[in-house]
């Protein structure tokens, strides 16, 4: 067993975990972040994506014990109070989700992209989500959601 301290969505806890315990399981069961979903458990679908020290990471391929002292954000930490993250708003406006199971992973994977992309081509947008699988939407509306979120960010910056 190993003692680890994680900060998840601003809340710090020190836990004693088995070294083999997956980060995703700790986030779900010890921090109550059930928006972290297992899609494949072998790092191929992106459903479990979270931010570790600001970078998208697959929580099914990371052990909690590897993340001692790290700052983690999950889908539950993306809204600012009652205001949804621009990408969350865009997904609703563009019907970027259906069953919703893969959605948290897409939001977490794409959030940094919409911060840095300025005039991305469709190809660049699609490449940015190449590590995530969605079985419902066919991706078309997710591409539209990303475009909308970037436009909203730029509008906000202009204002």
């Amino acid at each position: 067993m190993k003692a680890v301290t994680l900060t998840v969505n601003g809340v710090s806890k020190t836990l004693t975990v088995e070294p083999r315990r997956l980060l995703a399981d700790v986030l779900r069961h010890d921090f109550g972040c059930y928006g972290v979903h297992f899609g494949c458990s072998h790092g191929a679908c992106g459903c479990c994506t979270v931010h570790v020290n600001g970078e998208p990471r697959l929580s099914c391929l990371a052990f909690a014990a590897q993340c001692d002292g790290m700052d983690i954000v999950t889908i539950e930490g993306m809204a600012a109070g009652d205001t949804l993250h621009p990408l969350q708003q865009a997904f609703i406006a563009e019907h970027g989700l259906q069953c919703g199971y893969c959605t948290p992973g897409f939001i977490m994977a794409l959030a940094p992209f919409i911060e840095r992309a300025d005039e991305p081509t469709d190809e660049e947008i699609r490449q940015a989500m190449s590590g995530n699988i969605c079985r419902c939407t066919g991706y078309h509306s997710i591409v539209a959601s990303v475009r909308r979120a970037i436009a909203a960010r730029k509008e906000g910056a202009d204002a």
Partner: protein
Amino acid sequence: MPSRAAEQPRYVGARITRLEDPRLITGQARYIDDLALPGMMHVRLVRSELAHAKIVSVDTSALQDVFSHALVFTGADTGSLGIRAVADLPGVQSFTQPLLAQGRVRFVGEAIAAVLTDDPYAAEDAAERVFVDYEPLPVLADVEAATATDAPRLFDAWRNNLFVEQTRKGGDIDAARSQARHIVRRTYRNQRQAGVPMECRGVIATLDSTGRILSVWSSTQIPHLLRTYLAEELKWPENQVQVIAPEVGGGFGVKGHVFGEEVLAAWLAIRTRRPVKWIEDRREHLIASIHAREHIHTLEAYVSAEGKVLGLKADITADVGAYSVWPFTAGSDPGMVAKVMPGPYDLAAYEATYRAVATNKCPLGTYRGVGRPAAVFSQERLMDEIAIELDIDPFELRERNLIQKFPYKNVLGYTYDEGSYAQSMKKVRELLAPDIARARNPERPEIRTGVGIALFLEQTAHGTPDFIRRRSPIETGYESAKVEMHPDGKVTVDTGVQCHGQGHETTFAQLVADQLGIAPQDVIVRHGNTVTSPYSVGTWGSRGITLGGGAAHRAAGILRGKLIAIAAQHLQTKPETIELADHHARIAGDASRAIPISSLARWAQRNVENLPAGMEPGLVAISFVDGPPDGSYTNAVHAAVVDIDMTTGGIKLTRFVVVEDCGTIVNPMIVDGQVRGGVVQGIGSALWEHFIYDKDGQPLTTNFADYLMPNAPSLPDIEVHHIETPSAVTPLGMKGLGEGGAIGPAAAIANAISNALGVAIQETPITPNRVWDLIKSKQSSQPQAT
């Protein structure tokens, strides 16, 4: 027919963002694996490592040494319990799929033992300490092996390895053959694949402390059917069984079956008196849930000199794996092909023989489109081949054969309601004009462009007679909804049409809001819960909005009548003059005389002295809507444009166009989403997805690195165009559309690639390797220039 809402609809037809999205987008939705009960045990299944074997022994003695609290159960405990899925057709052979193997296993992944501990990690460890001793048996790895004359029997008592073999026919096929100028015969194959939702299956079961109420949570599309099956199989009174589908992360037909694991979890909860939870992992899902497709079709078309198809003969074989699935049975996929092969064409004669062959693979079940993607692939490839053989433009050939007048009774006796077959093809032809021109005049010699189309029908919302004909355990095809207005004027809709991404919480609310003069935001739609909703056969068959939504529309119509009657008395006017809109009942054209809906709702339940004499208190209504006997037929044309790299065999899908007609559209945003999602699944069928087994029946595609799901960079945008031809046989003229997107792509893409290469594609998936081989074989068959 139900009365339409008196006013113009405000919400039906509107692009309204989804009411269910806020919980999904914030991580607050709760799927099966997010639920827990105090004292819960976690189940890990020990699964067969061999495709066909006798089980000599299951040794569990090493387990309790390490895991003293672990429980283990084998087939000796569960005995004859299983999945019994038999169609009552002549000659059908059947066998019950046991919950846990009974001395023999018939596919890799078949459950042999269940190990329970209080922690899922420990359950996996414990399961590894169960040792199975196998005696291998000859493996029937494919249809050829299973139908060989000396093939061993998969089931000892069977005559051969066929679950079912049937023939369907109409018209005079011999006359068609003798009148034909051309006979075009082709064989087509497609591959084994599946729906593969992003959330795997899972189930939690518990018995209450009194030992009476069995509660089951399952990631299912069919909660009521699961309840009935559990009650019958476990001999438990059905009023003491409750099934709840929590948030469900996609289904696509896979979760439209009752699985052994669901029955096993319920049995374990009863046996152990502990809550039990089983969550499938991805490998289990890919080898041991439900597969689909894997057909061989041989078609023979009898064609006149003018290109009219006079008759069609079809021989349809499906490799359906080791067991029959409930409720659709082993014959469902090939049987559907035999039923729908005539498609949108005016055929005078048709004969189809279909068979379901048992092999040592994962059982075959339903997946979006059920048989239709395979049927349309073969039929629409064949139409292009006929066009080439007769040197007729493929649009023109189809034009000569398309059904033009409605209603139309087809060669098997099915009646098609109004559609827009010719109109939708004309529209696609216009849209494709630039691509067709580009295909004829390539800019670069190493890149060949091809254009392909596929026309098809989607039989949707079929009623009970369609299911009676199948004689399978599905039995019926109605849907239901209960609508209740509360004293404050807000509304709850309860329906058994389980929603796992289709947006019912929004579209049903739109339908109800229009009836009651309120807003969709005033309506909460609850689903997937047998405790709250009337009986339902669940979400499958492109029937949710037409029948479930239709039932909500009708039940709300009953409440509407009551609200109007109360308002008419208070406004001292005739009911016909009352309209419900903007949260008020008012006299049409006189805004000054209006009563808030919330007042009427309160009077009906709290101040009933205000009701007209003799009116019963309360504002609850239930409606059951059966589908039209032959269903309602959505039509569509799919078109694909591809660029083939002749130096590598590389395939680039550059454009995909859909023109579809699903009758009255309730929410165009959701319709587009359903179509596009389906299309991309169909593209996966055409190009990538394939469950591969080796000759020993070992699955080689057991993760997402080997089983290739469509991903974003490999896909174009999907253009969707609509034509709206309301049905005369359904509520509000709605037709189903959930499956259609997945039906056409394999055919359209295969036609486009064939067009580009000048070589016939006869098999999916169409991989670069296959294309490369075709390019090479064509080059070697052509005389070399000297």
